[in-house]
């Protein structure tokens, strides 16, 4: 083959559209459901999530009440929909906090020179030594329970992981051939940072953050379940789990459905994160 001919195999390998997998399609559908539930829960609800009807208490799932009713006769499905916003907000904000802090620490370590790298690295190792949930509990002890503290707590406890990965990516990209090529061309330090180092180092982080949202939702729910996050009667998933725990032997639907939402959210973000990672991997 002449080196002047374009290699057709490589071209078609890139442009050939691959049909998305069924799992990815399902994940997108579920995300659409979550988005609508967050922005306009009324569109999806079949009843008022806070309307008390003691006569209808503990109804099992039926056509009238898809997920059954709770101890006060409230529609569990509508409450699950109502709680989506709170649960996701906590998950997304916690990830954002963790990512922002991780970015700061990672950038200091990866770009700030040898001394900073050493200091941040050791601080990070100390943070790693504590289990994440313990770190979160410490924050709550200091600032009291509540959804905001829970968010900050989860964010803080995920930061060291992000920091380490971001540092690694930055160090790899900084010493790559194309960064040296940009230096030789005469580009300035900041331009190289903005055009080459950050975009290439942070592309994989987007994937990680998607995976992280699911994780953060689980942690936030765990804190709410322990009574340290959102407080009942707020229809947050973790808080609903905690409230339904008392009736777990008689009314399984009080815990199963909120739990199912947590599980599905985590699976969905994981599937999407992997799909993103596969796309990113194919591009490299």
């Amino acid at each position, binding site marked *: *083959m002449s*080196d*002047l*001919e*374009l*290699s057709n195999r*490589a*071209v078609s390998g*890139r442009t050939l559209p691959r049909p998305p997998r069924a799992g990815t399609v399902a994940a997108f559908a579920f995300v659409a459901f979550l988005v609508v539930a967050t922005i306009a829960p009324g569109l999806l609800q079949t009843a008022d999530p806070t309307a008390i009807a003691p006569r209808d208490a503990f109804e099992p799932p039926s056509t009238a009440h898809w997920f059954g009713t709770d101890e006060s006769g409230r529609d569990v499905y509508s409450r699950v929909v109502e709680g989506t916003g709170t649960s996701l907000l906590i998950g997304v904000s916690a990830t954002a906090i963790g990512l922002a802090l991780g970015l700061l620490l990672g950038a200091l370590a990866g770009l700030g020179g040898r001394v900073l790298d050493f200091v941040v690295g050791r601080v990070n190792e100390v943070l790693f030594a504590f289990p994440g949930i313990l770190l979160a509990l410490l924050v709550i002890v200091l600032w009291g329970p509540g959804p905001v503290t829970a968010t900050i707590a989860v964010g803080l406890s995920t930061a060291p992981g992000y920091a380490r990965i971001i540092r690694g990516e930055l160090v790899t990209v900084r010493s*790559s*051939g*194309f960064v*040296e*090529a*940009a*230096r*030789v*061309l*005469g*580009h*300035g330090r900041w331009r190289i940072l903005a*055009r*080459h180092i950050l*975009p*290439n180092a942070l*592309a994989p982080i987007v994937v990680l953050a998607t995976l992280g949202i699911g994780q953060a939702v689980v942690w936030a729910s765990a804190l709410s379940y322990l009574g340290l996050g959102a407080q009942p009667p707020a229809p947050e998933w973790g808080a609903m789990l905690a409230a339904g725990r008392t009736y777990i032997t008689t009314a399984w639907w009080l815990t199963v459905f909120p739990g199912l939402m947590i599980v599905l959210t985590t699976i969905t973000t994981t599937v999407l994160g992997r799909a993103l990672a596969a796309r990113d991997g194919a*591009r*490299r």
Partner: protein
Amino acid sequence: MTAPVLEVRGLSVSFGAGRDVVRGVDLMVEAGTCVAIVGESGSGKSVTARALLGLAGAGASVRADRLVVAGADRRGASEREWRRTRGVGAGLVLQDALVSLDPLRSIGREIGDPLRIHRRMSHAAARTRAIELLELVGMPHPSLTVDRRSGELSGGMRQRALIASALALDPPLLIADEPTTALDVGVQARVLALLDEARARGTGVLLISHDLAVVSRIADTVVVLDDGAVVETGPTAEILGAPRHPVTRALIDAVPTDVPRGARLVVRDRQAAAPAEPESDPPRPPRSGPARPPAIEGVGLSKSFRAGGGTTHAVQEVSFRVDPGRTLGLVGESGSGKTTLARLALGLTAPDAGEVRLAGEPWTPLPERDRRTRRSRIAAVYQDAFGSFDPRWNVGRILRDALVAGQREVSNAAVTALLDQVHVPVDAASRHPLALSGGQRQRVAIARALAGSPDVLVCDEPVSALDATVQARVLDLFDELQRVHGLAMLFISHDLGVIRHMSDTVAVMRNGRVIEHGDAERVFTAPQHEVTAALIRDSPRIP
């Protein structure tokens, strides 16, 4: 005539529904002979080699009229039968010894594995035999090396370990797929000698390479492959002396060794351009005119690195000069300090002592801020063109970015002009480097280097990763661009043939020092240093 250890008739291989990548290949290897398959990448050499061992891969459909390996027809053999053939009937030596050896196991265990599996030897017996085999392949200190892991060995030592493992069961057939590509000439010569020894002991050797000069040293018969089919076959001397097929001629012409400076390597172009060339070529500037300072000059450069416990003196008291329109060829084995010198010249690392001057003005003593505004005067081309491109950018964006850096006008016309200069089709601008061939990627890298209209071009192994024929075209391009732009080039290579073809003056490096320096013709015809003489002796050439 002895019995053939390999006999193949009408071998065809296809993948999926695609067309055949190997089409009706006939091969015959007799005991104690060496047959070489040569061809460009994509000609089907490696697929052929793999099909002979049942390793063509999942989805491959292998058909043949006859496929006799080690005395039995292997057509339609099961994986189980192939496993009994590999190692015992035929050994395989691959190009990349680093990935072919398990990094977590000692090479003694890697070599001992076939002995334990096929001969049911004990661990201790296998280790003893491994040491013998390492001795056979000329490994230094075999009783110590046997316990080392592949990561602790040099490239040449790894390749020897790999050959030792292929020889472990003394198979009648040895298949070597590009066994010396990416090795220094000295190491290359030793590896070839090793294969030749195996041949002399009665092993049939099937050698696969893109480089005709390499295989011509030990091959009895040459088979030229193009687009999956055999285009020419015959005794080595006959093929080299009187090639009939154009592909064979291109392969022979691509060998730069002993081709005079300035002469084109690609036949077709030489014929086409021959009448016009003398007039159209601007004359090279007179050698070292007294008025003009050298385009780039290094004075007493030293650089060391602290690593582990000790200090590595990568470059020691090196001085050099390159005049406008001239090329300084820098040659030496890997680890001799060539790349460090290139980085010093480019102002990427600060020298511990000495300085680099550009057109008589200080360069390395400047602070980076001042150097940056002058960076368009010196450009670089690297071995790994692909790695030097931002993976998110297409060719057009890469070139536009270089135009911005060189403070040139940024327009589609400017990008087109750059691509024209390096003879890459203009529609490549909208493509990602992934969609280009290796030769085209290197051309784009050269176009980027030219974007700032530099006076000096630093080329660090720019053709080492390319096939012989592609390499020839890229070398021709460098020559052409140098004439047009009057570039001063610092050209680094471990390949003496390339250096001789490209350079006006030559510096030979070893252990961080320049051991010989002078006019290219003088260095090559009358080398003063024994290392230079050895390098020249070992560099592959067509006899």
